């Protein structure tokens, strides 16, 4: 019934093959063929993933593991693909958003002497990320984990002749490596405890049969550090803002859809281990909340259009950590998804602006662009509203669920909820600020500059993403928990004993959930309002 | 007496006869050197044949279960040790003559004398290694030594040659006197000068038992002088540097073979009962020789002086074997065989590099030799590696055998000292290689003929073959030794 089950490896292999082919043959192809080939590779992967996803979602197919080949038998390390609800969803996000970014890049990288090389890296990046999320083995996961680090290195320092780009790429890799250090130690612990690196049922669902809470805490903390490196959490977030040295589609790919979500995915995947530990989840939540707040505060003061988004990304990732730390796994994954849409949109929109402004990134030299770039403006507006958390845009629902999850845990988590709420205010504030500085007011352009709208290669993906950013929230409203039902098999067995209250699914039934939603919406509105008050007046 | 076994001294006798013939022919006809070569070649061939005769007789004896035969009323013995030692001496003589040839051409009329002296010296040392009587040994020693004193001075143009001969003579005769005084004291103690005097000793000590100890010390010291063991080595560097280049290898090598075999007999037979007493002393001398020789060799600027000091160290290595006792005899003979051949070759190459009558051979002459004469450089490099005891050379096998025996006899500390010193020794052995291969010639460098003469090539080839072949597959030589030395 599931004809694709044995061909899931194609999802990784296609972009990988694209990368290899472009690496050796790309330079013989004229523009834009390499880009089309690369986009085709990942697009096909998306189609396959979607085709395999449908039976899974409808319940016609069971999650399953596809063994590819043995790697290090002594460690139980093998290449095996895990196709379950979580990995399938991640795959769709990665390939889907990835395809759009590929297409966008065809326009964005137009004229770059290393045009085809860029797509080589993009494809490799996608393959790496897919390896990470599809792995059913910690060793294979680590392959993807490291390869995305490598690709980020390659992509961030893509314009290697700029010393700052080269340094930023190296910084990203090295900081990631610090996280990897913890990850490797975590893997050692996993192996010594479980005797294998395969993600067996025991590991993912009943680790308590083997692990003591102390060991579970150790593993959880180590994974958290690893995740913090990849997902740019305090204190390992330092690489991400620098990483804006890369071409803008790279920022979209790395910081919206793929690499930075790896940490969130890791923790969600190993939620059972985190739950076994009495302290791990609160720590995750605290790190998340703190990161969200600090990054948001920094974002308020940025003038570089991409830096704002960079810190915004860090902040939103903090949100996801907060969600998962509150045992709101679905909320976390949900936000991961919506964030992928609107943040990709924001970055690509910003790229479009930068492109139109002839590589100008300083928002103080923009303004009044809404007429020059109508499509970009419109899509950016959608994205801004989505990230700010305005009903009915996607961000509203996912953010609301996170805050509700934090709130529902009560006790200490109420503080985190407060922090999250304040961050929501800040988010709305700085995003509005950015929107106004870029698109409204008088043009503050450098003399002789004539901004123009970008080509269709770029605007079409913007529009698609805008639709997704606007509508994806309805996948999981409090009343219509499609995503929650879908992901239930992955998280159903989890029941963190040390968290005070039940997960707040039932919250939707009573007025409290509605009240919380109103509060967060209100906070967002206040944020937008204050930004308008401060910036709209001055311009 | 029915034990006039002529075969036991056949090589010695032949050598003397050839020497006499050469003298007569020289005085009578004054033939050119080329014709002389014929006579010398025939003489050497005859001596080789005589040696084979002796060897095959010995093999028959060994198969009958006898270790060897005494001859001439217990004056000489034909056993494995003597036969192998005579073989080594014969090889040295053959190589020595080949390598001395360029010098002979240069010194003209004294060339015949040189050959005679070489033959006589060899015959003397052969008598020494074959002697079963200490007075006999003394005579052999002196015949050999006195010939060498003269050989040292044979290149009379050089001031250093005279100086070398003088020093060699004075210290050599001193050593001989010490040796023979030891014989006299042994006689006073035991009433016999036979080499197994104490083995058959009936217990009547004429003077006091202490005399035997003094005698032992005297005999050993006398021989140690000849083999340049520290602290009796002072003469060696000057002599090896100053003597005529063409024969110095022969001088050094043959004296060492004779001396060491005599030493093996003296400590292994004469004083075997006293081994508790002499073993630590010999071990100490061995260690001292190794350390001192190595350290002093490090600071030399002249290749031949370096070889002299390295010889001191080698004397120490062999003494390690001597101290280990009879079990090491075959290793000592193996060691002597390969080391002395290497020594002859090394001095021979030095003579080719610095000139056949030169005194000294400064390191600077060797710079860039590899590009000027690859053959000589390769030969010398192999020889140096062999001397250093590098594995894959026979030098390693020699050392291994000696060390093995010593370790089994409880002389672990000497072995460790020797091993450490042998590492330090790489410094000076490699130094030559560095000069030859890794530096370029400069104004200090002597002019060297592009390729060595035929005889020289032959000698180099023999040394290389012995060094490498017996390093990789030592069994033939070891078996040869073992089959006759029981």
């Amino acid at each position, binding site marked *: 019934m599931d004809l694709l089950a044995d061909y899931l490896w194609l999802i990784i292999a296609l972009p990988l093959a694209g990368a290899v082919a472009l690496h050796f043959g790309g330079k013989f192809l004229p523009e834009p063929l390499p880009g089309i080939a690369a986009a085709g590779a990942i697009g096909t992967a998306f189609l396959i993933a979607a085709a395999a996803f449908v039976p899974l979602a409808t319940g016609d197919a069971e999650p399953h593991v596809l063994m590819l080949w043995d790697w290090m038998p002594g460690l139980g390390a093998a290449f095996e693909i895990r196709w379950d609800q979580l990995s399938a969803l991640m795959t769709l996000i990665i390939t889907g958003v990835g395809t759009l970014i590929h297409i966008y890049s065809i326009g964005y990288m137009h004229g770059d002497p290393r045009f085809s090389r860029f797509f080589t890296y993009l494809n490799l990046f996608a393959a790496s990320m897919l390896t990470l999320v599809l792995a059913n083995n910690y060793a294979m996961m680590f392959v993807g984990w490291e390869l995305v680090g490598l690709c980020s290195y390659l992509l961030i320092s893509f314009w290697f002749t700029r010393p700052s780009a080269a340094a930023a790429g190296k910084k990203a890799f090295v900081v990631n490596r610090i996280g990897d250090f913890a990850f490797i130690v975590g893997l050692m612990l996993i192996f010594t405890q479980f005797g294998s690196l395969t993600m067996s049922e025991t590991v993912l669902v009943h680790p308590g049969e083997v692990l003591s809470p102390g060991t579970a805490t150790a593993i959880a903390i180590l994974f958290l550090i690893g995740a913090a490196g990849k997902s740019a959490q305090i204190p390992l977030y330092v690489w991400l803002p620098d990483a804006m040295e890369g071409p803008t589609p790279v920022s979209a790919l790395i910081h919206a859809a793929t690499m930075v979500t790896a940490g969130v995915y890791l923790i969600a995947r190993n939620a059972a281990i985190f739950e076994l530990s009495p302290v791990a989840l609160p720590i995750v939540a605290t790190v998340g909340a703190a990161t969200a707040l600090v990054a948001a505060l920094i974002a308020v003061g940025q003038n570089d259009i991409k830096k704002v988004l960079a810190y915004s990304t860090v902040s939103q990732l903090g949100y996801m950590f907060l969600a998962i730390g509150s045992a709101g796994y679905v909320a976390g994954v949900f936000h991961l998804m919506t964030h992928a849409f609107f943040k990709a949109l924001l970055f690509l929109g910003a790229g479009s602006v930068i492109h139109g402004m002839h590589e100008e990134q300083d928002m103080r030299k923009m303004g009044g662009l809404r007429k020059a770039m109508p499509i970009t403006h419109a899509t950016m507006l959608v994205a801004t509203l989505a990230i700010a958390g305005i009903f009915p845009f996607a961000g509203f629902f996912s953010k609301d669920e996170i805050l509700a999850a934090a709130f529902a845990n009560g006790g200490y988590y109420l503080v985190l909820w407060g922090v999250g709420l304040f961050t929501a205010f800040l988010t709305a504030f700085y995003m509005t600020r950015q929107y106004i500085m870029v698109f409204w007011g008088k043009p503050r352009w450098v003399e002789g500059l004539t901004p123009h709208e970008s080509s269709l290669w770029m605007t079409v993906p913007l529009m698609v993403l805008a639709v997704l950013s606007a509508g994806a929230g309805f996948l999981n409203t409090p009343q219509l928990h499609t995503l929650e039902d879908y992901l239930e098999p992955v998280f159903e067995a989890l029941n963190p004993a040390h968290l005070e209250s039940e997960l707040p699914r039932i919250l939707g039934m009573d007025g409290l959930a509605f009240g919380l939603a109103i509060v967060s919406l209100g906070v967002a509105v206040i944020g937008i309002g204050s930004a308008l008050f401060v910036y709209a007046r001055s311009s | 007496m029915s034990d006039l076994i002529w075969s036991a001294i056949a090589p010695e006798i032949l050598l003397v006869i050839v020497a006499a013939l050469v003298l007569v022919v020289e005085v009578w006809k004054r033939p050119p050197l080329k014709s002389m070569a014929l006579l010398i070649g025939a003489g050497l061939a005859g001596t080789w044949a005589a040696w084979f005769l002796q060897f095959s007789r010995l093999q028959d004896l060994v198969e009958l279960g006898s270790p060897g035969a005494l001859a001439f009323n217990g004056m000489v013995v034909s056993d494995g040790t003597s036969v192998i030692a005579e073989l080594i001496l014969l090889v040295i003589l053959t190589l020595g003559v080949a390598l001395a040839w360029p010098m002979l051409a240069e010194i003209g009329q004294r060339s015949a004398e040189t050959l005679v002296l070489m033959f006589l010296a060899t015959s003397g040392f052969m008598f020494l290694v074959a002697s079963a009587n200490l007075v006999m040994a003394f005579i052999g020693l002196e015949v050999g030594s006195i010939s060498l*004193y003269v050989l040292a001075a044979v290149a009379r143009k050089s001031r250093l040659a005279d100086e070398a001969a003088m020093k060699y003579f004075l210290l050599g005769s001193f050593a*001989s006197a010490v040796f023979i005084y030891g014989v006299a004291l042994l006689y006073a103690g035991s009433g*016999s000068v036979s080499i197994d005097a104490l083995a058959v000793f009936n217990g009547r000590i004429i*003077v006091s038992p202490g005399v035997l100890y003094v005698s032992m010390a005297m005999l050993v010291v006398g021989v140690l002088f000849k083999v340049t063991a520290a602290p009796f080595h002072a003469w060696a560097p000057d002599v090896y540097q100053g003597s005529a280049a063409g024969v110095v290898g022969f001088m050094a090598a043959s004296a060492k073979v004779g001396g060491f075999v005599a030493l093996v007999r003296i400590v292994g037979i004469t004083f075997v009962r006293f081994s508790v007493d002499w073993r630590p002393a010999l071990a100490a001398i061995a260690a001292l020789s190794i350390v001192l020789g190595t350290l002093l060799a490090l600071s030399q600027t*002249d290749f031949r002086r370096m070889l002299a000091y390295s010889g001191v160290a080698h004397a120490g290595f062999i003494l390690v074997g001597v101290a280990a006792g009879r079990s090491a005899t075959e290793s000592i003979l193996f060691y002597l065989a390969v080391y002395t051949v290497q020594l002859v070759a090394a001095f021979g190459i030095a003579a080719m590099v610095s000139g056949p009558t030169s005194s000294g051979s400064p390191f600077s002459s060797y710079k860039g030799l590899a590009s000027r004469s690859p053959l000589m450089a390769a030969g010398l490099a192999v020889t140096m590696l062999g001397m250093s005891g590098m594995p894959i050379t026979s030098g390693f096998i020699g050392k291994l055998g000696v060390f093995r025996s010593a370790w089994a006899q409880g002389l672990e500390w000497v072995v460790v000292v020797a091993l450490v010193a042998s590492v330090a020794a790489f410094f000076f052995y490699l130094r030559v290689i560095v000069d030859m291969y890794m530096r370029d010639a400069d104004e200090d460098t002597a002019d060297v003929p592009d390729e060595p003469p035929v005889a020289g090539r032959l000698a180099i080839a023999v040394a290389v073959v012995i060094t490498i072949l017996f390093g990789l597959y030592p069994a033939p030589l070891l078996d040869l030794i073992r089959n006759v030395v029981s």
Partner: protein
Amino acid sequence: MAGPTPYMALAFILFVIGATGLLTRRNALIMFMSVELMLNAVNLTFVAAGRAIGNFTGQISVFFVLVVAAAEVVIGLAIIVAVFQKRNSASVDELSEMKG
């Protein structure tokens, strides 16, 4: 008749004198004579011991030693003369061109 001891003691003294002379004097001729003295001390020992023991080995040995000594005289003097001809001196202190 006295035992061999006094003769041997005398021989020992002679030998030591000879050895000392060889090692301390600087004139080649005197050093050479010291060697001769040592050899004669050996001869005395042989004779004394031989007489005490009662066999002829010692006395026969003396002949050999004498012969060897004679040979040494010939060679030794020749070398000394050769050196003297070149340098007008027989002092070993002047024979120090080689160092190391």
